[in-house]
């Protein structure tokens, strides 16, 4: 049965906590009510409202792939009132989750194509969901390349999974850190994501590029893709704006006439170009 109260969250229990980087954690959440777990479904790209009772709600994507059932994961950086309290929760504690909201990555349409994932900093989580979705059905896709950059080695999230991807023969992983962020042991690239991407000379043929990162990274990455010959419809990204309801009602996440919470968060660059500069 669907909740009558659209603002009532699912009651979740924290099953696992992973420290990813300074102030960044991943929670694995399981449904307290088994019925909820059974009825719940989502698709990669979607997000939700995570709540700490007594503090409020915060918006993040679902960082786990929809190919793995029975739980969801979220990764967040401790920054405000809600995330500050979230960070103090422990395994076994209860919290709320409302969702899933928003549109999805059109993974079905990407079958038979090469995939190029480009992520920066804390924007790997939305990408992680779609990366694992594709890797869990690896046979559907051709070459899979992941370019991931962070400020410093310490700031790279999902370190254990990066290692796993690195070791997989069917994934090409390139990691980079900003100049000055490297350690003596660092074996990856040093440089900003757009520059590293440019040096990689990405081949646009039969390839989809998925870009997630801070606005400034996105701004400088698009021209590099364009230069390499990627067309607008070959490029996808996700937008973030401040949200409260997630349902297209509260009125704050719109970019022009488009509500990021309902019509997004996933946009192709073709769609993005039609939007005004309001994100």
């Amino acid at each position, binding site marked *: 049965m669907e909740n009558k*109260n659209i603002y009532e969250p699912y*009651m979740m229990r924290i099953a696992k906590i992973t420290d990813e980087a300074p102030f960044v954690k991943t929670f694995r959440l399981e449904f307290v009510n088994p019925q909820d777990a059974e009825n719940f479904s989502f698709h990669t790209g979607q997000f939700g409202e995570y709540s700490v*009772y007594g503090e409020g709600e915060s918006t993040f994507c679902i960082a786990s792939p929809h190919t793995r059932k029975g739980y969801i994961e979220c990764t967040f950086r401790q920054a405000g009132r809600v995330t500050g309290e979230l960070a103090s929760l422990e395994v076994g504690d209860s919290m*709320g989750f409302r969702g899933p909201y928003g549109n999805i990555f059109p993974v079905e349409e990407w079958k038979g194509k090469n995939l190029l994932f480009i992520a920066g900093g804390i924007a790997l989580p939305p990408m992680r969901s779609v990366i694992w979705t594709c890797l869990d059905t690896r046979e559907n896709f051709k070459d899979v390349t992941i370019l991931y950059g962070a400020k410093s080695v310490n700031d790279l999230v999902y370190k254990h999974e990066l290692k796993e991807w690195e070791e997989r023969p069917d994934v090409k992983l390139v990691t980079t850190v900003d100049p000055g962020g490297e350690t003596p042991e660092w074996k990856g690239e040093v440089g900003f994501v757009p520059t590293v991407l440019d040096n990689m000379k990405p081949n646009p043929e039969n390839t989809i590029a998925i870009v997630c990162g801070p606005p400034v990274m996105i701004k400088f990455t698009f021209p590099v893709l364009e230069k390499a010959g990627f067309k607008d419809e070959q490029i996808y990204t996700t937008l973030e704006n401040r949200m*409260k309801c997630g349902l297209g*009602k509260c009125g704050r996440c719109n970019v022009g006439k488009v509500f990021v919470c309902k019509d997004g968060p996933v946009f192709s660059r073709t769609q993005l170009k039609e939007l005004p500069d309001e994100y």
Partner: protein
Amino acid sequence: MEPIIKIIKSASLATIVDKLKGRYPRLYAPVKKQELVELEVINGFNDIAQDYLLTTQSVKKLAFPRVEKILDYTLQKGNIQQQSPDTSNFPETVLFGIRPCDASGFRSLTAIFNGDKPDEFYKSRYEKLIIISFACNKADAYCFCTSVGGNPGNTEGSDIQFTPVDNDEMLVEILTEKGKAVADLFSDLLSDCDKPVDKQAYLANVPVVFDVNKVIDNTTKSFNNEMLWINQSLRCIGCGACAFVCPTCACFDIQDEQNMKQGARLRLWDSCGFSLFTLHTSGHNPRHIQSHRWRQRLMHKFSYMPEQLKVVGCEGCGRCSRACPVDMNIKEHLLQIAEL
């Protein structure tokens, strides 16, 4: 249903109020409170303001209150229990003497709240409203309902409408089944209309100042006209008065309040005019200056809502202009946009 037209003696209004009071648990009407006219629970006809143009605040608070509890919970470490507030028992509420622009304002609110995922709180409260409006026989310099598709005798959204047609008589239009059930309470006071009444002749004269379609087209086209928005909003001080008195503004905030044992999640009025409305935790703000926030206010009402919800998000009541501390007269601004 086909409206039923009747006539009533104005002197019978007091009896009607008494009958409504006896039948319905809550009866709201405009009440004069010093400089304000507010929609309040009344005890009898004498509480009702005699001479008023509009209530200071709109009627939206009866379906979309300033503070709405949307979730209750108890907080015990390891054992949090949550419960949704009961929405099935909101009392039947009669709104007596509100204006047509208020009654029709529910169209926008309903489009936003009910939409594809209905908001039970709004929906249940609105369903319990019985709206008895009074057509306007006067208007002021801020009124412009006729420019946005309304008029001083607009019956949309009303269950019954009264129009003062003569010194001692009123035209009664019974417009809905709900209205009919209410009118049955005082059917003995209603008489038939012998001859057709020219309602229009008794209504306030509110001249049409602009073509709303031009406003819709031109706002839609003007997103990047930075100087237009800066010039219009230079004197805007970024408060929320306009949004809070507006009958159609529905933007809201969600906040938790708790003590050590229990808490509640609240839905609160919010305004796109506030700088914090869209501020990201990172410090980035997509609408970082007031002109962008003013643009949002007009674009939302006159471009996004018409396109997506098929309603213009404005009733032309002029409350925002009256409440504005710096006299941002929306009618003037819309006229300027229509003439672009």
